[in-house]
């Protein structure tokens, strides 16, 4: 079958049921924000190394990148995945495609407005997104829509049995607005600086574990089983993975404030509960590995699943690093350094991108009736994303360790006045070089993300025709 070009927007989105077209829209919008976020991530690292090279400072570019990567790409794409799997797992049509469409427009619009606002100096300066309160409030509203849609759909399900993905979807979509509600509390003027710092770390940690990892892993469980036609190895391990993610939730982020002005007992809680993060990652990785028993060879042709499995293993490594850094002895060196910047970039640009791809690349052929545009490009996406994000993680984490040891030795602690209050006073030449390497690896990641976006767009516009999975119901108007 020859490749066919199509330009009609409705046909581009697959021409299927309303929720299926909506899911495709989410994937496309997410891919666009991935490019923006990845580009901003590169700029932020360049700004970190060469403070005067680009007109916008690291302090502004970093939250712009976080916003684009986490919400613009991660959340929007994963919500698309939720809308894809829910009708298939519940036997019920999506409760309101109109509301869900509004949610997509809202999220995309607010992320765009947020990036512009922060760039022009209207940001709040808070981690991780830096949105001003007048954008945080509507963002809370739009992030509530996926939860409403999912819960209302599940409420009218005709399939009485829940596959594990449904549990992850319930938890992930509900935690998302709750986290943003907590984020809004940080804007209250009555809060002290310490409390605001804890809220920020709470939201930063939670957005990764309670949203990106929870939804990404849950959807991966669907993709693996569906694509390989192999039953899930263990429902119990999936449960361990889900609730461990909940318990791990915010603690790995709070480790950055160890020795800070918060109570001492928090650091003990952080170290203990932070261990839930590698437990969750390992439980999910083990479960998927067991499910793949006898089907490993099929990963060569299942591009999406392969990306997801690699993402899950990468998650286990990053989770272990984050958990180790939660202990006081390690935090004495790593806290406040680029070590945590490396961890965050690995979560967002590496693990997040690979997990999202597991869903989108598995779903797109079924949704639009077109084969994945280019297998080679998918391989490039996985390769570059993995090499780039791991490279950034290693270089920034090492730079952080070098800096931290330097501080601990006292070489920088009292020497700011001697150095001059300038950029880079807190790091030495070695750390500077490592930060430069980190920026170069971020460019490699960007190349991988460009490959992903071209695969998504190429698949819906010019992929070879294949069988399509349709949601049909007589008498129901998809419009």
């Amino acid at each position, binding site marked *: *079958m020859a490749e*066919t070009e199509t330009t009609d927007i409705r046909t581009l989105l697959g021409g299927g049921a309303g929720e299926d077209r909506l899911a495709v829209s989410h994937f496309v919008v997410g891919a666009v924000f991935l490019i923006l976020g990845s580009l901003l991530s590169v700029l932020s690292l360049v700004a*970190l190394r060469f403070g*005067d090279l680009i007109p916008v400072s*690291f*302090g*502004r570019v970093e*939250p712009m990148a976080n916003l684009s990567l986490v919400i613009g790409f991660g959340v929007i794409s994963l919500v698309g995945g939720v809308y894809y799997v829910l009708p*298939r797992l519940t036997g019920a049509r999506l409760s309101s495609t109109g509301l869900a469409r509004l949610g997509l427009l809202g999220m995309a619009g607010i992320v765009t407005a947020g990036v512009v606002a922060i760039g022009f100096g209207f940001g709040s*300066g*808070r981690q991780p997104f830096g949105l001003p309160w007048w954008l945080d409030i509507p963002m809370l509203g739009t992030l509530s829509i996926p939860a409403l849609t999912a819960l209302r759909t599940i409420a009218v399900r005709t*399939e*009485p*049995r*829940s596959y*594990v993905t449904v549990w992850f979807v319930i*938890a992930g979509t*509900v*935690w998302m607005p709750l986290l943003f509600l907590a984020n809004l509390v940080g804007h209250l003027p009555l809060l*002290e*600086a*310490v*409390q605001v*710092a*804890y*809220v920020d770390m*709470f939201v930063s940690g939670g957005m990764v574990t309670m949203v990106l990892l929870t939804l990404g892993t849950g959807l991966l469980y669907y993709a693996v089983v569906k694509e390989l036609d*192999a039953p899930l190895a263990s429902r119990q391990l999936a449960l361990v993975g889900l609730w461990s993610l*909940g318990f791990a*939730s*915010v603690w790995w982020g709070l480790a950055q404030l160890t*020795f800070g*002005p*918060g109570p001492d*007992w928090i650091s003990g*809680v952080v170290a203990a509960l932070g261990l839930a993060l590698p437990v969750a990652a390992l439980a999910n990785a083990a479960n998927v590995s067991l499910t793949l028993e006898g089907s490993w060879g099929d990963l060569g042709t299942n591009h999406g699943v392969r990306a997801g499995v690699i993402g899950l293993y990468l998650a286990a490594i990053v989770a272990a690093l984050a958990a180790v850094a939660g202990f006081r002895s390690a935090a*004495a060196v790593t806290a406040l350094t*680029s070590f945590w910047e490396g961890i965050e970039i690995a979560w967002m640009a590496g693990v997040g991108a690979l997990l999202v791809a597991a869903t989108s690349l598995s779903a797109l052929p*079924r949704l639009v*009736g077109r084969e994945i545009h280019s297998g080679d490009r998918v391989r490039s996406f996985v390769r570059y994303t993995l090499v780039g994000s791991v490279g950034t993680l290693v270089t920034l984490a090492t730079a952080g360790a070098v800096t931290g040891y330097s501080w*601990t030795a006292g070489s920088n*602690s*009292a020497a*700011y*006045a001697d*150095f001059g*209050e300038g*950029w880079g006073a*807190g790091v030495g030449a070695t750390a500077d070089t490592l930060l430069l390497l980190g920026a170069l690896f971020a460019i490699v990641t960007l190349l991988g993300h460009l490959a992903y976006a071209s695969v998504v767009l190429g698949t819906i516009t010019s992929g070879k*025709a294949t*069988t*399509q*999975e*349709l*949601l*049909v*119901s*007589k*008498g*129901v108007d998809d419009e």
Partner: protein
Amino acid sequence: MSDLVSAAAAALGIPESLTQRSAEARAAETGASLDEILSAWAGGAPPPATTQEPSPAATAPEEDEAAADPEPVTTAPVIDIPVPDTPQPEAPIPVGRYKPPVLVGVKDNPVGVLVGAIGLFAVIALIGLVGPASLADEPGARTSAISYSETALEGRDIYLSLGCAACHTQMVRPVVADVGLGDVTLNDSNQVLGTRRFGPDLANVGARLTSGQLEAIVGGLGTHPAHSLSPQDLSALVEYLSRSQSDGN
């Protein structure tokens, strides 16, 4: 041809473009001609779009159940939602073709998961947010709160909007690394703590640098990024930074 497509699309209840594409795919897959496929569909054949052939183990009993139960015509998607605990088929399973049903779920109540998720979040918020916030100040103890002027508070807003806290802390910790940075920051601090120290800590910068030095650095002295601020904003920011020093309380 277009009549056939229209007829097939009408029979299947799906858009013509989809029907056309699905028929092309099916024709390529089976070797039959496009007209044959479309004619069959126009005559009421089942939709072409299912992606997985149900396993022999699952189909026979389900078809029987479907025949007896006319229920969900309005909501059933054309996909395979497997039913667990399927009774063993009476017919022998072809050797090498049997696969257990996938996407198997258990009968449960999603409300339990919902309550669990919200409850867990509440517990975490209690420990991670309310806990650190409920610190009681000891009367007479040293404070690290700084009495900012109105101008300095405006400068604090500029400090935030510029994203200074992404690179600078205002948090002196009781660790070797922070020796010499000033008094340890306490839990009543009203400074912007920050979580990265790519640049120097600024908790006590007002005691180390003059206003002129601070203005020069904000303007881009050395390797610090240059910020183009109005004279009024620059003055407010410098006022805020200058006030950032221990009050000696």
